[in-house]
């Protein structure tokens, strides 16, 4: 019986071979071939000229991931303490922005952060800019927020925060309450309950949240272009340029993509070592 049912997966296995495995093989082949054909490692050597982009991408993605964790963990924890009705509505509210394409949301930030944008207008109204001028003896009309690295990080945090909250929340909410009670009975205070029971048990969710924020952050290209104004080039922009932009060089683009894939594999290996909770965690 069970064997018959397993035949249901055969079409999908063929599909995966065609549209998942074969494309990845293409990337590997391109990464190791020269423009005129033949094996080469030159594509990887050329990446050395883009060290700045690599370090910037990693720096911004790590900052964004940390900020997401610092906001996302408390939110998940507090949500799990609320009633079921509150939790349900909060979950919907966290998912809801994702239904609006992320470019739309990022585009909205552009008009908020502009030099004469809404945030600067607000700062002017409440006298923050005047205050800043009087304290530092400067004469600025606005805070420059667009086209900075800060704006790019903000865009990442804004877009990927739900990816941090959802996996952490789904792990915390399933925690066995009797474990917490047992810890209390055995004399642990609130802080110790958190540190020695809740935190270790929610680690799979945290790790999957970190992966789910870090991977898209380090590879983003639209956000950095829109909020960073093209000056803060990231790995994603670099890849895009090699395929559809001015610096056409698909071999180099494939090589950078391959590096990106290796980063993802490393993340997955780390996550898998922390037990089985991960699969559910990824899926809310």
């Amino acid at each position, binding site marked *: *019986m069970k*064997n*018959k*049912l*397993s035949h249901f*997966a055969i*079409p*999908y296995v063929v*599909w*995966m071979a065609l*549209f*998942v495995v074969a*494309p*990845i093989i*293409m*990337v590997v082949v391109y990464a190791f071939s020269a423009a005129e054909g033949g094996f080469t490692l030159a594509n990887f050597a050329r990446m050395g000229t883009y060290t700045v982009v690599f370090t910037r991408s990693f720096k911004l993605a790590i900052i964004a991931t940390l900020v997401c964790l610092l906001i996302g963990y408390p*939110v998940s924890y507090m*949500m799990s*303490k609320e009633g079921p009705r509150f939790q349900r509505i*909060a979950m*919907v*509210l*966290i998912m809801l*922005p994702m*239904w*609006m*394409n*992320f*470019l*739309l*949301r990022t*585009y909205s*930030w*552009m*008009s*908020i952060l502009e030099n004469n*944008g*809404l945030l600067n207008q607000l700062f002017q109204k409440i006298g923050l800019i005047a205050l800043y001028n009087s304290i530092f003896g400067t004469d600025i009309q606005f805070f420059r927020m667009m086209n900075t690295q800060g704006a790019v990080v903000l865009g990442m945090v*804004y877009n990927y*925060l*739900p990816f941090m909250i959802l996996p952490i929340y789904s792990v915390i909410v399933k925690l066995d309450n009797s474990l917490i009670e047992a810890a209390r009975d055995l004399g642990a205070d609130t802080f110790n309950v958190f540190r020695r029971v809740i935190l270790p048990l929610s680690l799979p969710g945290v790790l999957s949240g970190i*992966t789910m924020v870090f*991977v898209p952050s*380090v*590879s983003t*290209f639209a956000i950095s*272009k829109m909020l960073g104004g093209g000056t803060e080039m990231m790995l994603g922009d670099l*890849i*895009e340029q090699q*395929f559809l932009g001015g610096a056409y060089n698909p071999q180099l*683009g*494939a090589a950078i*993509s391959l590096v*990106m894939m290796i980063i*993802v594999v490393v*993340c*997955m290996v780390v996550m898998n070592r922390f037990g089985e909770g991960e*699969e559910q965690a*990824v*899926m809310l």
Partner: protein
Amino acid sequence: MKKNTSLLNRIFMALVFVFLYAPIILLIIFSFNAGSSNTVWKGFSLAWYTKLFHNRIIMQSVYTTLLVSLLATVAATVAGTFAAIGFYAMRRRVREPLMTVNNIPMMNADIVTGVSLCLFFVALFNGWHNFAVWFNNAQRTFILVENLHMGFGTLLIAHIVFNIPYVILSVGPKLRQMDKNLVDAAMDLGCTWMQAFWKVILPEIKPGIVSGALTAFTMSIDDFVISYFTAGSSSSTLAMTIYGMTKKRVSPEINAISTLLFVTVLALLAIVNIREARQERRALQRV
């Protein structure tokens, strides 16, 4: 003391929600702006909505987005459900490597998935071109199209590729929660395996299928990067149109279409949630 901390918690959460929703609400407010600026309010007007319906480029890309998302969701839900059942019935040694491959499009950076599919389609079309030329030269009865281009077809395939894993991931756990003896019992009582599928398995995993379909649709609507690399130049999703605009100037019709889409989603979600709540209440009453 206790009351105090929970109030602080609420305030913190409220701030996070303000952060999440402020840009969306601003977009909605400025869709009713009489002026064309996104920062200066010039009075109420519906002008951008009228202009929106006359903007062929935006309307066409909205249509493409909805069509590709719907088709991809339906295809991925059906395919993903069957695949999940197949995986479930497999031995662990066979299933685990396949699940790893299945997870690749989900875990990989979008841009890598997009790039890999783009390279694959180009290579595939080149191969097809050579084959078609050879084939057309060899005989004259049957003429094959020689030049294929990326377009709606490749866009749809790409969306199905990244949607199926989400369906499998939400159907899989439901299968594992199912009582294994149910299927065996049905078979013992004379069900064929097709009947066992329709009458026993499907009703058990229905919630997983629904949530998988919802996730798939969300991912399709939200996607930009993979579409950007696989749609070619002939078709464009809403996200691609907006991205093209940000290089010059974004026209405020975008605010109007965002508002319409958002309100539609809000209404749909409200209906789904109210229905769910009502069903739960009814189930409780029965108990």
